[in-house]
């Protein structure tokens, strides 16, 4: 038990030291990334090209409303949009 207690004491030191070290590194890393990006990538990326599989998520709701209305008129209320994807 005495051994275990010593281990626990060591872990108190090691553990808190490690946690502080890591979160200090978090600060350094975050700071470094911000500086790097501010210097080399200061502008926001251009709007991304549409990835193939995610295209379902990009129809704006206004367009969707228009599409849905159109479908309804054309199909006389029998059609249903199950998903809209950009081609």
């Amino acid at each position, binding site marked *: 038990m005495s051994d275990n207690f010593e281990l626990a004491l060591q872990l108190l030191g090691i553990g808190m030291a490690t946690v502080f070290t890591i979160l200090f590194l978090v600060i350094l890393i*975050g700071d470094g990334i911000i*500086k790097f990006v501010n210097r080399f990538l200061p502008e926001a990326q251009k709007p*991304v090209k549409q990835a193939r599989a995610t295209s379902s998520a990009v129809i704006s709701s206004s367009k969707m409303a228009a599409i849905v209305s159109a479908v309804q008129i054309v199909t006389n209320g029998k059609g249903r949009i199950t998903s809209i994807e950009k081609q």
Partner: protein
Amino acid sequence: MDILRKLYDMTAFSNLIDNPAPLLMLAVGAVLLYLGIKKQYEPLLLIPIGFGVILANLPGAGMGIVPGDLIELGDHKYMNLFEIAHEYGIMNYLYYSLIKTGLLPPIIFMGVGALTDFGPMLRNLKLSLFGAAAQLGIFTILLIAIAVGFTPNEAGSLAIIGGADGPTAIYTTIILAPHLLGPIAIAAYSYMALVPVIIPFVVKLTCSKKELMINMKEQDKLYPSKHEIKNLKAVKIAFPIVLGIVIAFFVPSSVPLLGMLLFGNLVKEVGANTFRLADAASGPIMNAATIFLGLTVGATMTSEVFLDFKTLGIIVGGFFAFAISVFGGIFFVKAYNVFSKKKINPLIGATGLSAVPMASRVANEIALKYDTKNHVLQYCMASNISGVIGSAVAAGVLISFLG
């Protein structure tokens, strides 16, 4: 009379007469359901856990998790999953394939990552340090638990409750002391639900009104930080990648948890191109994982396991682990304020233990009570989120040294 005998054997009454302890466990399950449903303590976890406790303690139903030594064949060999299902039923099959393998906590962490926004932390990077200070409860309780007779492995599992992070606590316990999984999970989630009680309690004990009125925005105006972030999206994308690599060099044993967290965060921050993945990670995958984690962790709590003196130790120790972590965060702020011109509100230390985002909301309410214009939420979120990293690192240290 043979037929009545058979009928009686079909029921669970003979089992109950042999051993009525499960009835007590059904009451424990009912209490957990009450806490989850009526008190709304972490309902997403406590309701499945509570139902799992009930299922496990229905005599004759075969839904309780059997001890790991029944699975072990010696000589580094184990029963295979098909044999476990065949011999011990679906609950053990789920437990031994999803939990005992350590799979679900990192999977849930992936979902947590896809729901986490490091923005507030990046805007107030220095406050991250308080997410370190607020891990004090972990290592203090480790010391105390060992002192009162827990084995080091059990003490490590108990202590990690002070990290205020469910998946981290469960993952650590799976590795260090799986026989304590039920009580530790329940303590972790219950005290996370009790953060609105624990934080004000510790704050009242340790902070003056003047400290609680420190206005962070005014401090920012007085002592402005040096740089703005010109391209937040790029920073948010680079951050989880670089962070993951660097932390891994120091505490590689934290990678299963932190790596998945940061992966989930990355696919979220990339945006539309990986929206499908972030959506799956934080939606169906995390929800399914939560159901099976809750039910099976609950099902570990058979009467033999739960009705043990150690359970009491976990409940008491878990509370102090939380309280000491909150105290550690506050104390470190106070120490910092001694040396710095730019003062920090101690509530920001109090939220360092994590329990995102409830701790921050509670802290914000306390601040507003003293000054209705003093919104500290965004500042608290910085230490709050860093506390997730802090406790995962602490878990890595415990696993390295005790696992």
